[in-house]
């Protein structure tokens, strides 16, 4: 076993355990904190995949922004949750069975496809994969349209979220 494989296995176990806690933690805030650990683990996986740009972006966007947003939302809606009783609904056992079956099916498919186990990293990494990404994003023959549509999507999300989330009744007794 190489060093890389050992690191991968450790990180994979961390990610999966953290993910399990995310979906089962009785306290919402704990679920959000476990999500942060899972996302950090994914950042390490990106480093292993030689995509360091996405590793740092993962930390900046997911841990620095999305996780913060989740924590804020949990605190804002705190009164809704008494954190007592089961946080799972009545379908939980059925859901668990379905998910385990899906996982089994997926793994079976992967194992029966020879390529996934034998395929190795395709050649050397390009000299500057980040610049490649930049070129591809703004190339009219590449992904120019998604690039501009993404900005419009973000604009729409921002406008929509501000419109919905605005507090119209200037709250009383708020800090």
């Amino acid at each position, binding site marked *: 076993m190489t060093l890389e494989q050992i690191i991968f296995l450790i990180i994979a176990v961390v990610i999966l355990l953290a993910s399990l806690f995310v979906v089962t933690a009785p306290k919402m805030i704990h679920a959000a904190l476990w999500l942060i650990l899972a996302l950090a683990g994914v950042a390490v996986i990106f480093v292993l995949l030689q995509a360091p740009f996405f590793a740092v972006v993962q930390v900046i966007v997911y841990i620095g922004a999305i996780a913060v947003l989740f924590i804020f939302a949990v605190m804002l809606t705190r009164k809704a949750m008494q954190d007592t009783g089961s946080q799972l609904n009545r379908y939980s056992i059925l859901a668990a069975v379905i998910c385990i079956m899906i996982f089994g099916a997926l793994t079976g498919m992967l194992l029966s496809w020879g390529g996934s186990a034998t395929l190795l990293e395709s050649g050397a990494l390009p000299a500057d994969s*980040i610049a490649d990404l930049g070129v591809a994003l703004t190339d009219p023959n590449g992904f120019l349209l998604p690039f501009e549509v993404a900005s419009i999507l973000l604009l729409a999300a921002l406008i929509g979220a501000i419109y919905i989330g605005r507090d119209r009744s200037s709250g009383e007794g708020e800090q």
Partner: protein
Amino acid sequence: MDFLTDPVTFISQWVQQLLINLGIPEITAAQILPGVGAVILPLLAMLWVIFLIWYERKIIGRLQDRPGPNRVGPFGLFQPFADMAKIFTKEHITPTGADKVPYNLAPILAVGGVLGMWAVVPFSATVFGIDINVGALYIIAVGSIGTLGIIFAGYASNNKYAMLGAFRVVAQLISYEIPMVLALLVPVLLSRSMGMNSIVQAQPVWFLVVAPLPALLFFISSIAEVGRSPFDLAEAESEIVAGFNIEYSGLKFGMFFVGEFLHAFTNALIFTALFLGGWQGPGAEQYPILGFVYFILKTLVVHFLGIAIRGSMPRFRIDQVMQLNWKIFTPIALLSLCSAALVEKLAAGAGDLVRISLHVAANLVIFGVVILVGTKSLKERNARLDDLAASHRSAIHLVLGTPHDA
């Protein structure tokens, strides 16, 4: 390699030779050394804090017309050691209802997030922590770990004031991250690289000259990121007791301060690397030790500026902090980014002198426009406020009757 011109490389080569002589294969020896460096550098940074505390207290003291620490040791040099001895032996009190794991993790994250930034700082032509090709973004990423520490502290302390303080700080930190990231994008654009060492090498002319506005924005935002005066809402003692760290005691409390002192200096380091040419200077290529000296000198000047601002500015209100960021800094950052990109592309064929003067001119134009628009809207606002005040006064007069002397 001569010991005097480049001691670190000299020593590391010597150690490597020693390892090889001991029978360790050359490749392994070459791999072990940077690992050892990765252990030593954070240790040195941690020890450096001791000096920083003394330096800062001394300067703040002089600014406020008092001697600063001067009792323990010559010039009070041993004061930080006395402080340490004290804080090490203080009891650790955990409040009831605290969420233990995040509560204890918070001070660790606050310091670790700052220490981690040192990994990519280029100290001289030959000694640059670890040169990764996403260095600039790495700094932002590691910085957001510190933000996480503050949220943890606020949530886990089970205290209203801690929570309020944490919310305020986090709102401030994430807000100022935007102009900081956008200002950081300009050096990246000018040097076409995110590696810290390549950014330094791309600066025969300092980026402070080429891009003065982003440099200013970066400097101010980095003060806000540390949460120091005038952005010290976090520890507005008079308003929210002490902020997010209220329930901490002993060294856990001290760690937040270690993080703050170190963060201020680290920001000066990064600013120097990004905008002041890092280790560049006459003779720095041939004699890396000179580059290191230049780097530290420039950093100390920048750090001194930060301390001077801390010592002389009153605190902003939270609404002012937010509006300064979103209504002034972010638009300026966006504008200067656009102008930098345009000039860089349109003047690509022109000589360096033309290109740089165009950059400077664009920056000046943006600055002028912002000042003009700013003063105009400020005047309008003041007029509005005056009207409001006048109408209130007349309302009061209606109720109370006109004053006799009117």
